[in-house]
């Protein structure tokens, strides 16, 4: 059993092009999706945190609940939407990496939005008096809260990335797991498992873990550096 697992790692370190392509795609898809999700989710979370509107409590519950969106469901909905016979078929995105990014963005945005909301709300409770007394306008207010809360938001980003990097249910449906084109580490793992090559699948899993650990360590380094220079 160990033989195939080790061979997967060996492929990685000797730069096997097929494996590297899979790794590259995995990182590109998950990272892009997380960044897009941050662009969408952080302002959304800040908005919900700072504005009073009818149904706000419901919105918060919904946002938190959507953190647990089942990937397969998101994949199916995207599949039906992006299929040629679906409403967005003209875009021709099904079975492409872009579709995978879309699906994962949908999965990750609620995570970032929900955590941002909590962070901003807590921070606003703390800063409210001071910022109001300093006559700080609404846009500046949001920017301040997002910036001062950046470490918690970085955690949100990591949580989102972890979710994207680990999931397979949505991207295997909208991507089609096409060799050399839409195959990522997780979809390759699913394939090898269904073929019965369990140890190879585990080997790939270890590669994925290494990547996630690397990203986590990188984030930690950035955070440490930031903390040294900031307040």
């Amino acid at each position, binding site marked *: 059993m160990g033989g195939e697992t080790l061979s997967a790692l060996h492929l990685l370190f000797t730069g096997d092009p097929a494996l590297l392509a899979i790794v590259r795609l995995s990182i590109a*898809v998950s990272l*892009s999706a997380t*960044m897009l999700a941050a662009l969408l989710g952080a302002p959304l979370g800040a908005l919900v945190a700072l504005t009073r509107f009818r149904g706000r409590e419901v919105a918060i519950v919904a946002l938190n609940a959507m953190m647990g969106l089942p990937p397969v469901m998101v994949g199916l909905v995207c599949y039906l939407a992006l299929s040629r016979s679906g409403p967005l078929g003209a875009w021709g995105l099904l*079975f492409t990496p872009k579709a995978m990014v879309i699906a994962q963005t949908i999965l990750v945005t609620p995570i970032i939005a929900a955590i941002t909301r909590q962070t901003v709300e807590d921070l606003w409770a703390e800063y409210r008096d001071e910022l109001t007394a300093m006559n700080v306008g609404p846009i500046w207010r949001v*920017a301040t809260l997002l910036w001062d809360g950046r470490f918690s938001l970085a955690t949100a980003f990591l949580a989102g990335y972890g979710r994207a990097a680990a999931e397979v249910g949505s991207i295997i449906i909208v991507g089609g797991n096409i060799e050399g084109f839409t195959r990522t580490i997780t979809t390759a793992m699913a394939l090898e498992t269904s073929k*019965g090559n369990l140890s190879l699948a585990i080997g790939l899993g270890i590669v994925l873990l290494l990547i996630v650990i690397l990203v986590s360590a990188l984030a930690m380094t950035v955070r440490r550096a930031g903390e040294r220079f900031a307040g």
Partner: protein
Amino acid sequence: MNPAAGMRMWLTVGVAAVALSGAATRAQADSRSIVVASTTSTQDSGLFEYLLPLFKEKTGIAVKVVAQGTGQALDTGRRGDADVVFVHAKAAELRFLAEGESLRRYPVMYNDFVLIGPKSDPAGIKGLKDIEQALRTIEAKQAPFVSRGDRSGTHLAELALWKACGVDIEQVRGSWYKSIGQGMGAALNFAAASNAYVLSDRATWIHFAHKADLEIVVEGDRRLFNQYGVMLVNPAKHPNVRRAFGQAFIDYLISPEGQRAIANYKIHGQQLFYPDANDPGA
């Protein structure tokens, strides 16, 4: 940190995100390519990894294979999400034709199924030449049996065989019959773990690394032959279909060169697929 710098930071993040996702999709010769919906067992056999580079070298066309169960592959064709469908379930293919989803079906090749079972052979059918008799015996003795249960070509073939030997499998299935809804490799793993019988395509069986106590118990019966057909999705119904490239792929498969390549594909020295594009009855 002032808001202006903050906004700039977000903008950079945004641009990076879009650029990155663009990079993710950059690596595709999207202009010269087709999407082929095929089956998991065909992909698992390794045939595509062998054949498609030959085709690409000859024509410069990249073939993107989406491997699904037969039922799902044909559905993908119906939606217009594939240019070509390449499956092995003749009845379903003919239905596809009848619906007008394609204009012509081309036979390409056949491989065969084998009945796999534990060396202990609880149903006592090893060495039988008659697959229907073997299945009847399994049912009578309620020997453990694993089905793929996923509307794949293999699954449909299994159901057809039960029907042919007079067993109404929906009626008589009990705890001895496990329908797992997964691919061939998973089914073989399951059979190995539970010492059960399972119908498999020969290619996946040869590839399968964890045979444990399993071996081939029945093979060679003509009824176990598995015919492959390829069809171009009807461009009249789905204007986005890449007609010229798709037809080029089909033409290659049925050409003498393509048929020779198919015959030359071997695993462990064994030929897996037998080209029969010129067989009128295929």
